[in-house]
């Protein structure tokens, strides 16, 4: 639709007034052109969806919109702000632009009310605490009725989903909201809360508030945006109407990388054929067993892919943690002795930032790479290059891990787990913030590795992914509520089972 050269003014004002105009904005980070001459116009009361693969420039664009960074060339104009003034975070704040951040940005040691007071600078006087509490409580009540959050709770002690609600409510805690930027707002929310959020969003846009919605969840973007912009390589490559556009159309516009799926499968299979025949072990005895608090059992046999499903934060991560480190005295867990783990929080518990890809990839496998505690450098390099080639990690084995994009870092972490030759591989939400192409490559790898006789147990916040599993366990409040074969694991069925017992009482 547009090339890098042309400057297509993408207009969404529908004849009304424009709230915000992005005029031929470009942004460079070192050698990476993050945005090249992007122009967008955003109307009052409009919800603008923004989709694209990782690194397409969505995050950069929303950071510019929030005034967090300055563009290299071009300008951002907001109705009501003086022409030519620098568009800074403070200016954006004055103009009524608020942003909900993708990564959870609450201070864990502060209470809900204190967190809200950090961003809500309305003059409040000596009794500021009580007023701050009142404001955030009212906002939470309005957006997420029945949220069950106490404003005195420390945010670090709340479940992920509640923290996300507070994060959203905090951004809304202002008198003069004109533009709300939502960067992956539903990543950690349950279905009900997500729906409540969108209902609220539509109520506000009816009053003239605009919104920018960035999400990997295509159906949400399609279902709730008035207009959808597709980004690729730092440019806007397509504009589609909301509501009617097919998800496949958007995926196609985002880039044809979806087809890399088969390429990876071929490489992985070629690798496997060299090693051993796919083990027909799925009929074998269970190598893993875990009993929940009511005595229901989770089992897995070699070669199986087990999915942990249900609403977000219903104890699936706890199950992974128990399987990873059962403790000395735990009788309710049986696991193979060699295990590997792909942590969910890549930034905090995943990578070693000072090391290269090769060092990051091989650290879990050092036991197998030498004798008497020594590690052979040659075998280390060999192992790393095998996996880098197989998963096509951009930048190669010698690149510093921090120079990689999030998706490629995730590939390295997954390769680390599989390279360790563990019988049981645990993955905690491996697709958080990973694009479709990488996702497909990782699926393929998981299936191939399972075929070679490994057991894989994984959890995803996106229940649609569960169809890729052999068997799925649905969790609720830390307990197993149902078990089904992967072929039956549709999102509807999982959601239905999650509510089966105690209807309506959603935490």
């Amino acid at each position, binding site marked *: 639709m547009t090339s890098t050269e042309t400057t297509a003014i993408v207009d969404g004002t529908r004849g009304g007034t424009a709230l915000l105009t992005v005029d031929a904005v470009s942004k460079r980070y070192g050698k990476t052109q993050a945005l090249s001459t992007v122009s967008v116009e955003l109307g009052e009361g409009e919800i603008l969806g923004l989709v694209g693969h990782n690194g397409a420039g969505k995050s950069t664009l929303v950071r510019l919109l929030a005034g967090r960074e300055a563009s290299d060339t071009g300008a951002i104009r907001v109705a009501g702000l003086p022409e030519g003034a620098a568009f800074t975070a403070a200016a954006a704040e004055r103009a009524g632009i608020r942003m909900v951040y993708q990564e959870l*940005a609450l*201070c864990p*040691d502060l209470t809900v009310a*204190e967190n809200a*007071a950090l961003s809500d600078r309305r003059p409040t006087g000596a009794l500021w605490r009580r007023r701050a*509490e009142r404001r955030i*409580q009212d906002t939470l009540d309005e957006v997420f009725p029945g949220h069950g959050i106490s404003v005195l709770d420390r945010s670090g002690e709340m479940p992920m989903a509640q923290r996300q609600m507070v994060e959203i409510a905090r951004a809304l805690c*202002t008198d003069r909201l004109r533009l709300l930027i939502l960067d992956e707002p539903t990543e950690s929310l349950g279905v009900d809360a997500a729906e409540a959020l969108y209902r609220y969003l539509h109520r506000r846009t009816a009053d003239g508030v605009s919104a920018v919605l960035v999400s990997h969840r295509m159906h949400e973007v399609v279902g709730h945006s008035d207009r959808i912009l597709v980004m690729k390589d730092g440019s806007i490559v397509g504009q589609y109407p909301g509501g009617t556009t097919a998800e496949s159309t958007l995926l196609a516009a985002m880039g044809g990388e979806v087809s890399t799926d088969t390429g990876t499968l071929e490489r992985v299979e070629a690798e496997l054929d060299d090693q051993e025949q796919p083990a027909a072990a799925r009929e074998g005895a269970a190598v893993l067993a875990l009993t929940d608090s009511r005595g229901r059992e989770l089992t897995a046999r070699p070669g199986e892919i087990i999915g942990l499903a249900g609403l977000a934060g219903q104890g699936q991560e706890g199950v992974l943690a128990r399987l990873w480190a059962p403790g000395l005295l735990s009788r309710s867990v049986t696991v193979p002795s060699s295990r590997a783990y792909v942590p969910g929080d890549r930034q905090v518990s995943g990578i070693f930032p000072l090391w290269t890809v090769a060092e990051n990839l091989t650290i879990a496998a050092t036991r197998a790479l030498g004798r008497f505690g020594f590690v052979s450098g040659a075998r280390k390099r060999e192992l790393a290059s095998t996996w880098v080639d197989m998963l096509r990690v951009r930048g190669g084995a010698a690149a510093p891990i921090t120079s990689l994009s999030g998706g490629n870092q995730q590939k390295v972490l997954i390769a680390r787990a599989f390279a360790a030759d563990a019988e049981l591989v645990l993955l905690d939400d491996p697709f958080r913030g990973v694009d479709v192409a990488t996702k497909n490559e990782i699926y393929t790898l998981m299936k191939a590795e399972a075929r070679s006789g490994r057991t894989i147990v994984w959890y995803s916040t996106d229940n649609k992914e569960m169809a890729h599993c052999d068997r799925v366990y649905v969790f609720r409040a830390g307990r197993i509520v149902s078990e089904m074969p992967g072929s039956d694991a549709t999102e509807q069925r999982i959601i239905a089972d999650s509510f089966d017992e105690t209807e309506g009482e959603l935490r």
Partner: protein
Amino acid sequence: MTTALERPRGASALPGAATRIRTGAVQGSPAVLSIVAMIAIVILAAVIQPGVLSMNGITLMLTAAVPLVLATQAQMIIMAVGDIDLGVGALLGLVTVIAATVLTTSPALGLAMLAGIVVVYALLGFIIQRRGVPSIIITLGMSFVWLGLGLELLPTPGGQTPEWLSAIGQWRPELIPAPLVLIAVATVVAWLIARRSRFGTRLRALGSQPATLEKLGWSLVRTRMAAYAVAAVLLILAGLVMASQTRSGDVNSAGNFALMTIAAVILGGGNFAGGRAFPVGAAFGAITLGLITVLLSLVSLPSSFQSAAQGLIVLAVLAGRVITERFIRS
């Protein structure tokens, strides 16, 4: 946006007093241990020497704890932003030296030197934030600077504090022991700063998650500088109180304050990661550790055992904290 007047449908009320007290108790539960430990030590001291429960006895027992409490509140603020000050002991020593020398001979210069310490602390906060260097190393280095300055000013203990300062040390109200008053004032001030003010919220946010504070448009550098400056003021007050009690200066007079204040903060519910501040708990922690020193002298331990006993007690008390935390969690 709704205001407090027109609440949306189904709005829930703010937590009531009972909920507030319960939440406060749960969140402050790590500090409870320090209170228990303090009571235990007072009882132990009273058994050994019944005189300690008299007005005079309490005054004598708590006198040494006053500077420790003040220094602990300073350490608590530094630890709330996620740092540690290893230089508190040497700095307190330097302040007593300044009080016993320059402050007597030329008060203006003395006050200027004390103000200079506040500026240096703000500068430390600046460096630590801007350069992202660990506070442990910076303050370890600074402790040698303070020590050196103290030695240059007053190579051997001695000097004479100004009259007004000595008078404060001699203050004895009739109804209530003077140290209790000073401790209470110090604690309330620290509580207002760290827990009740908006600045205190930013302070803890800086220790808890600096990226968030920055995203919301606050200056991390200014916040950390302010935290260090406030801590410096409290440390100087601690040093002056100490000098007022001994009426002389000694750069080594607060040798193990670094350990004692850090331990007191931890004992009182603080943590090393930052983001938390429990002024009341920290005060009880400091009193406990101060009383332990008194207790050791009551049982007439050989002098070479004294420091080992202190070290072991700190370890035991912190271990107790860890155990109670596990107990609470399970």
